[in-house]
C-alpha cells in the first residue's frame, strides 16, 4: 500500500488516516478501522501530558506521554508537531509496541533538517535516543539527535525490530565531539533482529561535528539483520580519520542481503580548521566472517572517500554500475 507523504495534508483530523486522498471527508477512506491518533505539540499553549491527546487542539506535551497512550497491534498513530524547540528525550524512548506509528508534522524534508527533533541532551547522556524493538511500525518526518558527551560510546537510533519503515528521517549520533572522538560511537545501529526494514529518503550521520575516531555512521552489530533496504538515503560524515567508515558490518553481523539504492555516501574530508584534508579510505568496511551480500542498485555516489570498500568489503559488494575509474572525479566511480 502506498500513500501520500506527510500529515500536513490530513485535515481535518480523523483517526489514523495518514493523508490518503479522500480521508479528509467523513465518508472517505480510512487506513485502519480501530487505530487512534494522538497528538503531541509541546509549544501549543494548551499542551498538557494529562490531556487525552486525541484532539489536536488539546495535544500532549511530550513524545513519551504520547507513546504511553498507544495500544499495540491496532495501528495507533502518534503525531508529533514540528516546532522551534527540541523535544528532549530524558531516557531512551523504547518503541516496543508493534503496529504503532510515529509521524512528524513538518515539511517533507529529506532527512537533514527535520523539525520534529527528538534529542538526547548532553546533561542526560542517554544512548540511544530511540530504540525500535517493535515490528510493523511507520516512522516519518522526524529527527533523532544525540548530544551525549560522556566518556562512553553512544548513538542515535538502535533497531532490533523488523518490518518497519522509516521515511524522511534524520538520524544523527555523535552530536558532541566527545562522542565523535570514540571508535565505538555511531548514528544508527542495526542490532540482532533488525530484519526487513526499509529506510527511504533518510539521512544517517552528521556533518557538523568532526569525527576524529575510526567509527561508523551505520553499523551492523552482531546478530541477524536480514534483508534491509536503504533507498534514496544519504550517509554523512565529516572526517579525515583513517579507518573511519560510513557503513560497517561488525564481527558477528549476519545480514545476508543489504540493498542500497540510489544512495549518497558523502564524507567531508576537512580538518577542524576548515582546511581540505585526507579522504577517508573507504565507505564500507566488512568485519563479519559470515557470508552476505551488499547490493548496490541504481546509481550510488561516493564522495570524499578514495574507495567504495576495503579489501574485506569489496568481495561482498555487488554493483550494476560500470567498472571503477578515477579519471572523472572521485565522486563518480572511485577506485577501490
Amino acid at each position, binding site marked *: 500500500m502506498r500513500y501520500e507523504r506527510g500529515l500536513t495534508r490530513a485535515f481535518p483530523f480523523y483517526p489514523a488516516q495518514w493523508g490518503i486522498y479522500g480521508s479528509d471527508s467523513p465518508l472517505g477512506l480510512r487506513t485502519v478501522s480501530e487505530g487512534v491518533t494522538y497528538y503531541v505539540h509541546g509549544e501549543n499553549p494548551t499542551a498538557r501530558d494529562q490531556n487525552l491527546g486525541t484532539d489536536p487542539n488539546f495535544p500532549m506535551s511530550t513524545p513519551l506521554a504520547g507513546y504511553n497512550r498507544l495500544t499495540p497491534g491496532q495501528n495507533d498513530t502518534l503525531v508529533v508537531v514540528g516546532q522551534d524547540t527540541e523535544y528532549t528525550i530524558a531516557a531512551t524512548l523504547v518503541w516496543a509496541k508493534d503496529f504503532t506509528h510515529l509521524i512528524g508534522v513538518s515539511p517533507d524534508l529529506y532527512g537533514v533538517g527535520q523539525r520534529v527533533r527528538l534529542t538526547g541532551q548532553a546533561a542526560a547522556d542517554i544512548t540511544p535516543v530511540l530504540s525500535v524493538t517493535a515490528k510493523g511500525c511507520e516512522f516519518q518526518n522526524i529527527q533523532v539527535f544525540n548530544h551525549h558527551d560522556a566518556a562512553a560510546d553512544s548513538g542515535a537510533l538502535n533497531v532490533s525490530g523488523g518490518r518497519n519503515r522509516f521515511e524522511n528521517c534524520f538520524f544523527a549520533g555523535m552530536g558532541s565531539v566527545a562522542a565523535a*572522538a570514540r571508535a565505538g560511537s555511531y548514528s544508527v545501529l542495526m542490532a540482532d533482529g533488525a530484519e526487513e526494514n526499509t529506510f527511504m529518503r533518510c539521512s544517517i550521520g552528521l556533518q557538523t561535528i*568532526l569525527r576524529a575516531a575510526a567509527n561508523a555512521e551505520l553499523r551492523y552489530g552482531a546478530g541477524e539483520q536480514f534483508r534491509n533496504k536503504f533507498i534514496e538515503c544519504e550517509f554523512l560524515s565529516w572526517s*579525515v580519520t583513517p579507518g573511519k567508515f560510513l557503513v560497517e558490518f561488525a564481527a558477528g553481523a549476519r545480514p545476508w542481503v543489504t540493498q542500497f539504492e540510489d544512495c549518497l555516501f558523502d564524507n567531508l574530508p576537512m*580538518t577542524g*580548521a576548515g582546511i581540505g584534508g585526507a579522504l577517508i579510505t573507504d565507505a564500507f568496511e566488512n568485519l563479519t566472517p559470515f557470508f552476505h551480500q551488499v547490493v548496490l542498485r541504481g546509481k550510488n555516489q561516493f564522495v570524499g572517500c578514495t574507495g567504495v570498500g576495503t579489501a574485506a568489503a569489496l568481495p561482498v559488494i555487488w554493483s550494476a554500475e560500470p567498472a571503477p575509474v578515477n579519471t572523472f572525479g572521485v565522486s563518480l566511480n572511485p577506485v577501490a
Partner: protein
Amino acid sequence: MTEKVETKKKPKVDKYPGVNEAELKALVKEAEKHPGTVPRDLLENAKGYLDLLAKEK
C-alpha cells in the same frame, strides 16, 4: 670525549586526526577578533575539541 648522536625529531602526530590544537586556537581567536568570519559549525566544533583536549590534559 662523548660521541654526539644526532636524533631525528619525530613529527608531532595529532591525537585526533584533523584536530590540531594550535590551528583551532587560532580559529577561535580569529572569530573573537572578527565576529562572523568563521563559520558557526566550524567554531562550535573547534571550541568542543579544545574543551576535550583541555579535559584530557
